[in-house]
């Protein structure tokens, strides 16, 4: 047979016609995430990033110190006061639906003695006393069976292969590792995709509340209380994007509803916050026709009392230098 240029054109265009497009929604979100990460990395250097990670950035209430309150003037004050339980630094909570934070299945905070944060990815971060421990998720770039074989086939010296083998083994999800928190932060700042990019802030003496509830409550614009439930709206554009709770530039993503997102808070008998649910707008400004509405952001405080400080995990081993390097890019 002959192959004329037009035959080739036709065949190639036939191939294009049988190729499905990509879903724009996830790509747009990935693009925004990447831009947010780059902004975070560039913003005022590492010190500012560390401050953000440790939750040291306060969100400002819209319109300064005089929030707009409708229906119930006392409700917003009750919301502010509900944070005192979290500020005391002893609580247990879960978190889901935050924009750039992996869902937290259970986090136990006893600020003086430490914390234990378990993520839905199966990664855990724990501080017991003055020592911090990490248990990697066991998933990601280096979890595949052929990784070491690839290194061997690349012709690396045996000593290097052994070094990588140790690091890769430490990421398999069965080891607790003794880590330097500052080096974890540096690994997360490497401009690569890392499981560390999506960790929550860790509690600090000056900021024991890591739930993010304070930033959301600070952005509340309307509140109405019925029993132990407070409902109303908040202005998402006033929530600091460095906290990674909501998408950067929410008005560009959600449109006008970004400034009046509906929330529902619940309090316990002592007026302490037990839950905060933020409904993300169902219709997005940039929504593809087949895109599903986003899941709400949900913070649930399950316990304030009887929290014991976490204990050091048995058989924890020191993390190696190469493991930090692998962690910096384990989500590519």
């Amino acid at each position, binding site marked *: 047979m002959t192959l004329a240029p037009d035959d080739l054109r036709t065949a190639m265009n036939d191939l*294009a016609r049988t190729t499905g497009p990509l879903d724009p929604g996830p790509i747009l979100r990935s693009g925004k995430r990447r831009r947010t990460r780059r902004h975070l990395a560039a913003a005022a250097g590492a010190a500012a990033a560390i401050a953000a990670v440790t939750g040291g950035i306060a969100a400002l209430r819209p319109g300064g110190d005089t929030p707009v309150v409708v229906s119930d003037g006392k409700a917003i004050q009750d919301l502010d006061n509900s944070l005192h339980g979290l500020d005391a630094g002893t609580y247990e909570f879960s978190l889901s639906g935050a924009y750039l934070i992996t869902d937290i299945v259970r986090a136990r905070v006893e600020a003086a003695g430490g914390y234990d944060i378990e993520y839905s990815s199966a990664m855990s971060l724990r501080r017991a006393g003055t020592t911090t421990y990490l248990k990697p998720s066991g998933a990601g770039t280096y979890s595949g069976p052929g990784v070491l074989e690839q290194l061997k086939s690349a012709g690396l010296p045996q000593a290097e292969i052994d070094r990588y083998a140790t690091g890769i083994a430490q990421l398999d999800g069965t080891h607790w590792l003794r880590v330097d928190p500052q080096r974890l932060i540096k690994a997360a700042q490497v401009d690569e995709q890392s499981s560390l990019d999506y960790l929550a802030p860790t509690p600090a003496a000056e900021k024991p509340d890591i739930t993010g509830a304070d930033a959301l409550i600070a952005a509340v614009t309307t509140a109405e209380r019925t029993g132990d439930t407070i409902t109303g709206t908040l202005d998402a554009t006033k929530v600091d994007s460095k906290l990674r709770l909501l998408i950067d530039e929410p008005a560009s993503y959600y449109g006008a509803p970004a400034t009046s997102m509906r929330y529902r808070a619940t309090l316990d008998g002592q007026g302490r916050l037990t839950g905060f649910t933020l409904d993300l707008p169902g219709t997005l400004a940039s929504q593809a026709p087949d895109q599903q509405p986003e899941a709400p952001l949900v913070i649930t405080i399950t316990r304030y009392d009887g929290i014991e400080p976490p204990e050091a995990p048995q058989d924890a081993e020191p993390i190696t230098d190469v493991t930090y390097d692998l962690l910096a890019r384990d989500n590519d």
Partner: protein
Amino acid sequence: MKFRRARDRDESFTAFVATRSHRLIAHAELLCGHREQARDIVQTVLVRAYQRWSRIEHDDPYGYVQRSVTNAVTDWWRTAHQRHERPVDVVPDVPGRPDDTIDDRRALLGALDLLTHRERAVVVLRYFDDHTERDVASMLGISVGTVKSTCHTALRKMRIALDDEAPSPHSLHGPQEQS
């Protein structure tokens, strides 16, 4: 006003992905020979393109992204070679395609597989993207004469390969259409 511009940018970007990404994936697949790898490459390139979308959306965004995809496939060739990898997947992602389409695709990709990277790039840029010989020369950093001779050699190789295949009634024939 700032938000309005940002929303326009996002809408322009999502419209571009919805309407043009299939052709970029085909471009990448023709270059690298693997559809899943092609989808990954195009997705990565688009995420990066979003960072500068406001600067490129009004100035041939398809050309910009397509050049980025070409470069990304070149990088993939290089790193795959360093890793001694050769992916073996051919995973159809469009259910319900007629068998003759799959045969055509396999025949086409099989013939392209026989080409060198440069030959493959020249053929795809010339006959899929319809770039002029001068444009292809500029993109690949080679002379127009080299484009001509490379194209001639590549087509001869592909003819021989397709002659060796038992042709299906539809093999590499059909109405010419830009999708």
